[in-house]
């Protein structure tokens, strides 16, 4: 029986705590941070997450990952 994703009922991917959807969201989230930081001059990860959480354009899976990181305290 495969283990579940930390955020949903889907089976998790190898070497990740997430399923394919949340893993893709996490990857996108990490990749976009440098572009956000460049766009604003400077931006902490907490500010980055705050902004993304308020935007309607942000995907729901990305918001799930942000909430998960917050709960885990993994903001750096």
């Amino acid at each position: 029986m495969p283990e579940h994703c930390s955020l949903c009922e889907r089976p998790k991917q190898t070497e990740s705590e997430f399923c394919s959807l949340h893993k893709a969201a996490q990857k996108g989230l990490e990749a976009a941070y440098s572009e956000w930081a460049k766009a604003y001059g400077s931006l902490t990860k907490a500010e980055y997450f705050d902004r993304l959480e308020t935007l309607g354009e942000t995907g729901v899976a990305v918001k799930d990952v942000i909430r998960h990181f917050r709960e885990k305290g993994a903001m750096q």
Partner: protein
Amino acid sequence: MTTTLIVAEKPDAALHVAEALGTAQEPTRVSIRGVPFFEIQNDAGRVLVCSALGHLYGVGAKGEKPRSQYPVWDFDWKPKHEIERGQGRQEKWISAISQASRQADQFINACDFDVEGSLIGYTILRFACGGADRTAQRMKFSTLTPKELRQAFANLLPQLDFPLAFAGMCRHEVDWLYGINLSRALTQSALKASRRYSTLSTGRVQGPTLQFIVEREREIQTFVPLPCWVLGAKFDVDGEIVEAEYEFEKLDTKVQGEEAVRECAGRTGIIEKLESKPYQISPPTPFDLSSLQSEAYRHFGYSPRVALAVAERLYLDQLISYPRTSSQKLPPSIGYEDVLRALKSVEAYRYDAASILSSGTLRPNQGKKDDPAHPAVYPTGKIPEGQIDQHGERLFDLVVRRFLAAFGSAATRKSDKATIKVGRHTFFLRGSRTVKKGWIQFYMPYAKFEDITLPPLKEGQQVKVVSVSLEEKFSQPPPRYNPSSLLKEMEEAEIGTKATRAEVIETLYRREYVKDQRMSATPLAFRITEILTKYCPKVLDVAFTRELERDMEEIESGKQTREHVVHETIEYLKPVIEDLKKKEDEVGRELSSIISDMRDSSVTLVVPCPRCGSSLKVVKNPKTKKRFIGCVGKWKTNCTFALPLPQYGRLTLLEKRCPECSFQLVQVRSKGRRPLVSCPKCYVKKAEKPAEIAVAKSRST
């Protein structure tokens, strides 16, 4: 005396055929076993015209097999009533046609001239008329007007269009092999694991189509927007304030934007260059089915299936030509002038039709796509006489306007551009206007072009910057499909046919794989797609499906045989299905949790009971079988809060809230109707009924 039996596709078509082919009097309506036939006399002798009711025969498993059994590779063509429930009418029809065929010496297939029509006629003549397919002839027509039907009867094709019928048979057989085996594999796996029955399905076209939606949903759900800044400026041009756009559509950093604002605010710009370019817009091409469906969605919000149904009704009423066409061409043989003259007699089209007729040579703008069987959709010239409803009226007008527009000359528009320099920054003022209407005047109100006129400007003129704005924006996720854009995607990917695509989309809704008009994939759709990707990825492969589609098209042109394509399909599917069967437990486990979640969420409202705060659920009274919204607090606090629900159609709880009272909205979808969205709470208020309805004493959740 010779008796000829003509098989038409639908009862209305049968009546038109009989009316057109009779010499003197009106057709006599005769009844055989309660099924209507039309009898006429003409030069050919006695003619009996009957109709099918769509397909009277279909593919079924050979012999008697339980409906749950799979894999199934042996099949037969059987009467529909033997393979599907609720087809009693079809049984009566077959028996009546069979009886009539015993009186006939000659047979003619007068069903619609396409794959499905050819197959409907072929199976009836072969199975119900004792092998009459061998000697039967074929009528070929694109409109049900008396003139064209008489021409078709006078120029009968000497034999049936077997390649078309065999291509249709092959499509049904291949789809059946896919559908039965894959759907049963999913359904049985889920049943085994959860002990609860849920119809799960996939198919040759359905799988890749669902994959499009799931992929799009995945992109949307994992979308991370990127910031950008849009700069704009307002200029004072001789007292008139005009808005100009910046040379770069967007700026990637905030610093760039702020710097530009600082450097432009309060300055004076100079008009460096004025440009004005005319450009032509060609008339639209005549409608093929998909462009008709797309325009019907754009202007009236009709789903592709509704648009097709309305168009078919217009065709049966002799008002437009056969709508299931891929052609965007109108050959001269349709009689351009006759149609235009007929349209001239209608007040709404009088001026436009007269204008086209007086313009000289009649030459419509032909599109690239062609269809050997039918021309593009066009009005026959028959004028509606109050027999069509509002949907029919709208679609008829659209078809007429598009037909007229195709004969129009190119429209000319002019684009104006002023380049304004403010220091090192450049802004543009843009305008555009129609200078020659051409075809646009015939396609109103469906052609929409906005006119923006610039104030009088001169090169070297100084213009004061009134304000500079810097707006923070974010990149947007890709849009969700709607039924029309999905249909277009299927067409571009060359999967499905013009006749089946709309139905595939409806099935996705029926199976609860998608919801809402802006189609979003449900968790079940994700899970089904993930399972198919894991265990049988080729089933979702668009290229593979397209290849199969092409093989089937080659049967139509005689380059491929039906037997070969079916054999190849079985060879491919066998190991896939056998593997799925072996992994039934695993697949079932992956499906069962999502089915249970879906079932629960489909009946549980997100808004709490306004009286006791407990959950609200859609429940059914076991005695009256009526559904309503009930409070689960009934079991704890004896709360009797309840709201009525629409009783017919498939009910979905929407995520949207009522703008009036914030209660959760519900949607009901019934076949052939537009989805109805309503608020159960407001409905009660509007109906001036008490907020609670009497709830039967015993009820279940």
